[in-house]
């Protein structure tokens, strides 16, 4: 045995072993198949790129979470991607700029983050997602519902139960606070207090707007109830304009995915640094962490790209999905005696067997060997025999 300390990995990194490694690639494959079936085309950006392009645009959200290193070739700073959305934005606005809109793109890949957090201690995990880019004006809402429908359909294919989707209005807090005319210092403190639903702190800071702000924070939960509460509050018109869309979205989701719980938390902002319009997060009652997140945003790339394009999309996190997805379908394994002919093995594999071959006939008992290698069957002298 090798000494234990040689196997030590840095915090947040792990060797994924059997059967989890296969389970992960199965579930990523299932997700990508779902994305394919809705006409989303795959792209595969690199693991590393120039820091500047990784942390601009939607990349600002993960700038602090990005590993940097110096490229000895270009002598410039490189970043290891901490989120793939910024790369998709770059591809959509540059290389795929000439493709017909709306553009449907999907991706999966590993991301690395500087720090894990309490519920997501991993610093490396897989993302898989889909983005619908360039649906402007009246197409925006159908684009949003398409991406949510795709996401829920893909999750369902993984056999996840007790699913819920939490809707939010990512720009509501900052918009409302700017309307209410607070000093920069109070504004920053209020954003934090709203984020933590810290009613005591909101009470202390709100200066006359307590009822409004605390009312907003307390309006969170089952979507229809919350929407009723919000409609009963006297909110500025500029804020209520999205409520019609939310109401319609709730009924669209419930019509197609009646087993999914829809909740609404209008001040939720976590994970929505660059989103606007409507944002959403997927949960399962059985998972400790959120399964994925997404929403509407504008795709930008580079400083001159001030117009950008409307986009709607989402990303799933493999570590949370692994906790709740069903196991990948089992495949029967068969142990082949050393004298099995190549054609025989080929036929068995073509029939869907996993074959594990004895390398030399050393007079060991085939049944014992089969058991040792988790095979339920033995193949010897042209015959398949079950172990028990």
């Amino acid at each position: 045995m090798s000494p234990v300390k040689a196997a030590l990995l840095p915090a947040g990194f792990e060797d994924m072993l059997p059967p989890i490694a296969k389970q992960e690639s199965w579930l990523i494959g299932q997700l990508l198949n779902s994305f394919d079936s809705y006409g989303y085309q795959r792209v595969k950006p690199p693991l590393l790129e120039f820091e500047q392009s990784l942390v601009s645009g939607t990349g600002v959200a993960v700038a602090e979470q990005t590993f940097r290193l110096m490229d000895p070739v270009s002598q410039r700073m490189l970043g290891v991607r901490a989120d793939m959305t910024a790369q998709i934005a770059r591809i959509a606005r540059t290389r795929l700029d000439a493709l017909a809109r709306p553009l449907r793109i999907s991706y999966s890949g590993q991301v690395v983050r500087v720090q894990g957090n309490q519920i997501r201690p991993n610093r490396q995990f897989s993302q898989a997602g889909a983005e619908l880019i360039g649906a402007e004006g009246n197409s925006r809402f159908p684009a949003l519902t398409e991406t949510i429908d795709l996401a829920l359909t893909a999750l369902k294919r993984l056999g996840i139960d007790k699913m819920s989707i939490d809707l939010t209005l990512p720009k509501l807090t900052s918009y409302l606070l700017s309307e209410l005319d607070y000093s920069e210092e109070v504004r920053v403190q209020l954003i934090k207090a709203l984020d933590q639903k810290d009613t005591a702190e909101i009470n202390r800071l709100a200066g006359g707007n307590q009822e409004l702000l605390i009312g907003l924070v307390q309006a969170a939960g089952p979507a229809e109830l919350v929407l009723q509460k919000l409609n009963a509050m006297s909110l500025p018109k500029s804020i209520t304009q999205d409520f019609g869309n939310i109401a319609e979205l709730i009924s669209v989701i419930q019509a197609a995915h009646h087993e999914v719980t829809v909740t609404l938390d209008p001040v939720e902002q976590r994970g929505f640094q660059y989103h606007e319009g409507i944002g959403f997060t997927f949960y399962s009652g059985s998972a400790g962490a959120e399964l994925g997140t997404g929403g509407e945003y504008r795709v930008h790339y580079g400083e001159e790209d001030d117009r950008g394009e409307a986009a709607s999309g989402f990303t799933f996190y493999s570590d949370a999905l692994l906790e709740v997805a069903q196991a990948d379908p089992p495949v029967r394994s068969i142990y082949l005696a050393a004298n099995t002919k190549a054609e025989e093995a080929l036929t068995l594999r073509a029939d869907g067997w996993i074959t594990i071959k004895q390398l030399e006939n050393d007079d060991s008992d085939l049944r014992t060997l089969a058991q040792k290698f988790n095979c339920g069957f033995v193949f010897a002298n042209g015959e398949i025999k079950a172990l028990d």
Partner: protein
Amino acid sequence: MSGSSSIRRKHLTIALPKGRLLQSVLPILQKAGLTPEDEFFDSKSRRLEFDTSDPNVGLIPVKPFDVATFVAFGSADLGLVGADVIHEFGYEEIYIPVDLGLGHCRLSVAATPEVADQPIGHLSHLRIATKYPNLTRNFFAQKGIQAECVKLNGAIELAPKLGLCPYIVDIVTTGNTLKANGLVEMETILEATSRLIVNRNSFKTKSDSINHWITAFREAVDDKADAA
């Protein structure tokens, strides 16, 4: 699948602070409609989890400093704990929806009178004994001072007397303990009361029942305030 050690649990688990704070939060718990089973009050009981009058709700009494941790990691859905502990850990996974208005206290800097009289603005570094290293470091960092914290778990007032460090940061309720140990209070870092905290994931996935308890606790607090 991986990593999910799912022991069969009650629908909701509430973490309560053991010790002094427990006595003050029990009436609120009762008023919110939760009566712990009898064995909960038996100091000889070795059990760590207890039933309540509501078959869907269980209680886990833990050290006050651990309440926030149990809730942040989702081992408990709700918790009752002081704002000092919440802010010391700064867990992102916690919501703080109700101020229970109990256990009023403050987190303060204190020192012996001679030390307290000396200005600290010119210093770049201070050594401080405390149970709250994060809040202490942040507070002094705002002043441009690097606080080297010696983490103690109790009897913090002894530290200046025995020469461990000139300053302490600790919870002050009446100020009597400081006085008895010959220390004076210099500055307040934080005013604290106890709060109802909620795990973020539970809030999203069990929103019906969590909202029910948030409302119940809020009404219990308002009731008490009206009665006072």
